[in-house]
């Protein structure tokens, strides 16, 4: 049976991933914004990271934003 792959990062690896993707400093400075609603994303409300064109974007925990990201990725 084919499997739908969900890529995930565990909390314990999140810091390193953000660092590698160049997101640690913007998040620490409070400059990182949700790619959908534009609200400020911090370590508490970060839900997912996704590519959009040549940008690395993040999505907050707002379910509407998450659904839109999922829709774009379909």
């Amino acid at each position, binding site marked *: 049976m084919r499997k739908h792959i*969900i890529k995930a990062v565990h909390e314990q690896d999140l810091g390193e991933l953000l660092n590698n993707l160049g997101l640690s400093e913007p998040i620490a400075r409070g400059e990182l914004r949700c790619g959908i609603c534009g609200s400020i994303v911090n370590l508490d409300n970060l839900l997912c990271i996704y*590519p959009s064109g040549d940008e690395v974007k993040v999505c907050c925990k707002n379910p509407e934003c998450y659904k839109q990201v999922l829709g774009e990725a379909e």
Partner: protein
Amino acid sequence: MGNVGSILTWLAPNAVWIPIVIYLSTHPEVAAKWGAIFSRLFSRISRAAEMRSVALDIQGRIGSFSKSISSEVPGIMPYGIKIQWVTGEVTKESFFKDGEIILRMNYHTNQDENVVYAAMEYIARGMLSQSRPYVDERVMKSTDLICTKKLIDKERRTALQFYYGEILSPARKSDGELDRYVLIMQQLDELGYFTQILLRELQRLGVTMQFSIPEEGVKEETKQFVEFLDEKINRKKPGVDVYPEFLGEKIKTSIVYVARAEAETIEPHLVWINRCVDKGVDTIYLCGRGYNVFLVKDLEKRLQSHSRLTKVFENEFRVSLGGRRVNCICVRYDVGESDVEP
């Protein structure tokens, strides 16, 4: 004799394990759930065990739901699920090359949240994947919301509070029309027809459309179909409108309520079914509750020899009506082409 003896000696202690191993290898979702429990024991001392515990738990729960709903609506969730961990080694280049969303997962102590977000992603991308382009956006969203609710209700009840508070309620509040569809589908689900009829027809639509270009007319039809189900099933009064039918461009179906008042003989039902076949419906659902389940079975026997009807499924289930559990049945027939030249 010595050989037989040694085989028996080997088999005796393994007699318990062999069926367990066979069972787990044929039920990977159960194996995953047990694997998660086992891994959790070591999660405090092992980073790998913590991650395995989170991933296997999600794979087990979603896999189990997927299996159960696929047994009712074959093909609705054609994919299994796998959580693939991304570690800190990801670079920008590999991230863009993969082009995938990376979902953040918490420690297993926050597993309710993990399950909810993983379920949302799995359902939005893995359920009815062939039909999705042809379904109205709000109908699809509300279908996803109700299916996610069903999954969580069945597999991780403790996460329901989080799901209602953080996902379902905000979605309903943000869009009045979506809220209406969610309520319609919730009511259909309580009566057992969300899975039996709506999901089956949406699934069939994807197969019928065969990857053709999505048109607004088809999407509009899915909305009208949901309205039809609301009017003819949710708001149905006893004895009234026992033969509702929906004759759209792509969805053509008839629902036959087999009820005692109409079924002193089952002849009227047979006459109606033949009329539907001649009118060109693609599917016919026979539905009955309580005592009428037996009448549906009688009707089925009479339809066995029908040249144009193929029974696709029969499902008996129980619903709560007025505080008591009632047996129900839903049987679907596909209508074949006529042999007679026009």
